[in-house]
């Protein structure tokens, strides 16, 4: 044991003399762990909140019975159904105000609650008595407790007469919800014997009589909303985040790999001396691994703290994205479980070991004596290059195959991964060939030397350059994708928001009143009635949009594909325009048919066009509004749009607001809707952009640290040149030019690679993740800017070691020259 400790001390003494190298290693590990664990924290946070959302009783996953005409219905229907053998359980829901804040109050019946609807065990047999018997309990999430400003056990006042049952903390509940026994809820809300809906359990003991025979046509069965299973819906978003986290992690590992490699190389004389003095290879390997594990645990811990900070900083944006894209709510407070810490440490340790694996293998293979010559590491360079080239080729072929045959989100990401990895592996081969060519074409001994020297330098630099290539390519790719999306989205919004003012009345009666009132005015150019309904197709709910036959749509509504005279065909009734997402999911084409079941019987629609519907998680199709009401007589006629000359919009909106007391959800002008949509859009990609910038930053660090460590290793090559009469400044200038040239070639390679990445994102990943495809656009100015940023980063990274060289004491150079060490 003491022997192992002594060997460890000897090896560690290297770090004391080379703190910069140690900093490199630790920085790489911290950066890798921080980015990865930050993203994981975000994912975990979101997942946890989905589970809580699902834990609202019967929130999304249970079939329900509702009265389509009224908000509540008599409790007697529950009794009747229950007697007839239906496994139903009553729920009363309403919004309440406490202390100026709005909450959802849910009354449930724990006795009849179907087991699959009760995701919370608190209302199990033991707590049952306390829950039901007066004074009862009000279950709340910790956030709700905070919002209320109350403690566990407090009894909030609903109004002058009503006091709620004592609060009880239930961490698994979603925020903003108060849950209590239905009897108490009925009293609190002053709705005796009334219920909002019935949850229908899955257990089917025996036959249940048809619904109509018990309740007549009062109640309607609503199947569970397959698409509101948030965890599934948001999977693609999280996959995106995870992919980014993984990429950052890999870039971080590149740093670790080069730092470990250089440390091994520089410690070879030490290792050799140790072996000559009687330390066995096995012991040395064990000690080196122990050293690495210790370092990576410590750095991993720091990285986790960094990851926590990153996650905390990005959480608001992620929350906004999820809300904007999927309507999923996640709380703004970060809560992490121990598993996150452990898995973060495991990642950093395993990552470090993986990054060091090649160094260990090399060390084990080298004979004791050859280990004395660092050159031995480079001797195999050509063979490595060939191997790497082969590997790169096969990766790129795999990527091509994936692009051709792949048909899922996973294959999309696999395509990106193999493509990027293949390109990274190919980079040193390409650079080597370029430098070789340069050397052949150049004249003059100094220039020739500098080409050849760059080639020699390549193995030490190539990992950092790979990191630069990856980070830049991903930046270009994601930047192009986001910009393409942004341009498309804005153009699409212009067309899609065809009307100038949007109204959504509360009831049909109010809608008629508004229409009558509008007919009196002459600053209204047109009223465009619209309708909405929902049908089930393949078990998933699909929205139906009723469009009026009006020039507005003919002129503005953006179509991706259409038959001739598409709007005339739509007016005729039995035709539909389908959204791109729906078309992709159901594999529908223009000219095909879409049969649906409506309350008025089956309806077969001819598909006459496909339109873009960005940002809508649900499938949608549009039909003529009159035809829609024929087939959905019950559908609400509360929505419509107005065409108003721009100058009159404000007057009309204000008059409507005053006249009918409409709030901003019921009445909005086009500009407001557009602004809101853009805001959501921008927040959606804020996370991506932030992670992008992080990755580029890490790549910059990778370059700097490799150059710094390489700077020392390269002195023996430079010292003789200095000795035969080149000034330090001249040497430094040559060094600068060489490194910048290599970085420039890398950056130039990254641009086309980035475009390919963008294509993969747009044509494969987005299509699978969101269901829409964007037109591919290039943004040369953006690419130039990125190129500039990369070159500045490379310049900064090069400058430090070069300045060190320019200022180096001649005495040090002499010794290096004399000792060749």
């Amino acid at each position, binding site marked *: 044991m003491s022997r192992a400790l002594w060997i460890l001390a000897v090896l560690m*003494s290297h770090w004391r003399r080379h703190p910069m190298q140690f900093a490199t290693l630790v920085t790489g590990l911290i950066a890798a762990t921080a980015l990865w664990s930050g993203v994981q924290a975000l994912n975990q946070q979101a997942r946890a909140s989905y589970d809580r959302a699902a834990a609202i009783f019967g929130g999304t996953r249970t079939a329900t019975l509702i009265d389509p005409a009224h908000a509540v219905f008599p409790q007697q229907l529950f009794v009747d159904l229950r007697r007839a053998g239906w496994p139903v359980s009553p729920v009363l829901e309403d919004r309440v105000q406490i202390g100026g804040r709005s909450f959802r109050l849910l009354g449930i019946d724990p006795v009849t609650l179907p087991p699959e609807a009760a995701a919370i065990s608190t209302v199990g047999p033991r707590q049952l008595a306390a829950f039901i018997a007066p004074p009862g309990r009000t279950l709340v999430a910790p956030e709700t407790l905070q919002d209320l400003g109350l403690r566990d056990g407090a009894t909030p006042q609903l109004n002058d007469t009503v006091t709620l049952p004592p609060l009880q903390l239930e961490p698994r509940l979603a925020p903003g919800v108060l849950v209590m026994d239905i009897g108490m809820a009925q009293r609190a809300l002053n709705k005796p014997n009334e219920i909002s809906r019935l949850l229908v359990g899955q257990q089917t003991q025996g036959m249940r009589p048809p619904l109509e025979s018990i309740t007549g046509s009062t109640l309607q069965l609503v199947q569970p909303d397959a698409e509101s299973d948030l965890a599934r819906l948001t999977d693609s978003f999280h996959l995106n985040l995870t992919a980014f986290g993984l990429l950052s992690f890999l870039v971080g590992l590149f740093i670790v790999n080069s730092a470990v490699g250089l440390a091994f190389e520089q410690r070879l004389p*030490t290792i050799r001396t140790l072996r000559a*003095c*009687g330390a066995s290879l096995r012991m040395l390997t064990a000690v080196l691994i122990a050293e690495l594990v210790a370092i990576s645990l410590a750095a991993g811990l720091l990285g986790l703290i960094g990851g926590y900070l990153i996650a905390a900083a990005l959480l608001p944006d992620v929350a906004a994205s999820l809300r904007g894209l999927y309507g999923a709510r996640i709380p703004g407070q970060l809560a992490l479980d121990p598993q996150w810490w452990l898995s973060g440490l495991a990642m950093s340790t395993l990552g470090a070991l993986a990054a060091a694996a090649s160094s260990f293998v090399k060390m084990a293979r080298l004979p004791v004596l050859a280990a004395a010559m660092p050159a031995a590491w480079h001797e195999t360079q050509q063979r490595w290059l060939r191997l790497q080239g082969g590997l790169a080729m096969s990766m790129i072929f795999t990527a091509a195959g994936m692009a051709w045959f792949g048909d899922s989100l996973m294959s999309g990401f696999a395509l990106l991964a193999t493509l990027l990895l293949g390109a990274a592996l190919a980079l040193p081969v390409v650079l080597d060939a370029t430098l070789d060519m340069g050397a052949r074409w150049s004249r003059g001994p100094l220039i020739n030397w500098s080409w050849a020297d760059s080639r020699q330098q390549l193995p030490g630099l190539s990992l950092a350059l790979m990191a630069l290539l990856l980070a830049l390519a991903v930046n270009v790719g994601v930047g192009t994708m986001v910009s393409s999306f942004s341009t498309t989205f804005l153009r699409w919004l212009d067309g899609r928001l065809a009307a100038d003012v949007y109204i959504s009345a509360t009831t049909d009666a109010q809608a008629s009143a508004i229409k009558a009132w509008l007919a009196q005015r002459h600053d209204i150019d047109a009223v465009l009635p619209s309708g909405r309904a929902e049908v089930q197709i393949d078990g998933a709910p699909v929205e139906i949009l009723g469009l009026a036959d009006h020039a507005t749509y003919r002129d503005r509504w953006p179509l991706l594909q259409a038959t001739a005279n598409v709007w005339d065909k739509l007016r005729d009734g039995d035709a539909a325009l389908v959204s791109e997402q729906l078309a992709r999911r159901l594999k529908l084409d223009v000219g095909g048919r879409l049969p649906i079941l409506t309350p008025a019987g089956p309806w077969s629609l001819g598909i006459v066009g496909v339109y873009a519907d960005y940002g809508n998680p649900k499938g949608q199709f549009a039909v003529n509004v009159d035809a829609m009401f024929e087939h959905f007589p019950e559908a609400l006629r509360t929505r419509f749009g107005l065409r108003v000359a721009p100058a009159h919009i404000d007057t009309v909106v204000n008059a409507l607001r005053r006249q009918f007391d409409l709030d901003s959800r019921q009445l909005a002008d086009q500009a407001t809707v557009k602004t809101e949509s853009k805001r959501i859009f921008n927040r959606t990609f804020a996370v991506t952009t932030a992670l992008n910038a992080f990755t580029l930053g890490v790549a910059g660090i990778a370059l700097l640290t490799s150059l710094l460590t390489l700077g020392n290793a390269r002195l023996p090559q430079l010292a003789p040149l200095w000795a035969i009469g080149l000034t330090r400044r001249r040497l430094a200038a040559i060094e600068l030019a060489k490194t910048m040239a290599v970085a420039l070639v890398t950056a130039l390679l990254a641009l086309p690679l980035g475009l390919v990445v963008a294509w993969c994102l747009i044509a494969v990943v987005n299509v699978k993740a969101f269901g829409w495809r964007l037109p591919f656009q290039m943004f040369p100015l953006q690419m130039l800017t990125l190129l500039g940023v990369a070159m500045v980063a490379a310049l900064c990274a090069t400058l430090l070691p070069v300045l060190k060289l320019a200022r180096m004491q001649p005495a040090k150079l002499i010794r290096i020259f004399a000792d060749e060490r």
Partner: protein
Amino acid sequence: MLNVVNLSKTYRSAQDEVSVLRGVDLRIAAGESVALTGESGSGKSTLLHLIAGLDDADGGEVWIATTQVLGLSDAARATLRRQQLGLIFQQFNLVPSLSVADNLALQARLADRHDPAWQAELVERLGLGEMMKRYPEQLSGGQQQRVAIGRALAVKPALLLADEPTGNLDEATADDVLHLTRDLVARSGCAFLMVTHSARLAAMLDRQVHLHAGRIA
């Protein structure tokens, strides 16, 4: 102490084969000091490496006391080296990131045989007292070589192998260092095999052997 029997070694590379040792026989008794001479490239360093178990031979035997070195595993060779051998090379003798004091104690600590009194005596006689806190790069070539000798002797090895230990030194210093080494070797009673190009230094040892055409003449 040392018995080399019919040792042969050929370096093979993709292009050609170099047969360096072709049946070397050599025997050194405990307490005996032997000088190994031969022209450059004759295989002197190779022979030393094989004896120390740093490389594999193609045939023959190397016995140190009662152990056949060539048959041992890497771990067993390592044990043998730290317990029984002291090595001094032409270059790369010291750990650059350790102070002189730590370099001196390197092998003794590995062998768990650190003897402060003996080390103090070595420091004193090698004249290293002033520079214990310095690092190798702050020493001259001769000073570095003296630290290497001190490190090898600090374990009181049974066999001391030195590869041109005084190659970097001027005549007077070289004589000094060799005198010292011989003294210390005599006191610890170990066998001593030293490679040298200098006939004068070779003459200072008990016996001389000459390596030529892959054999000991």
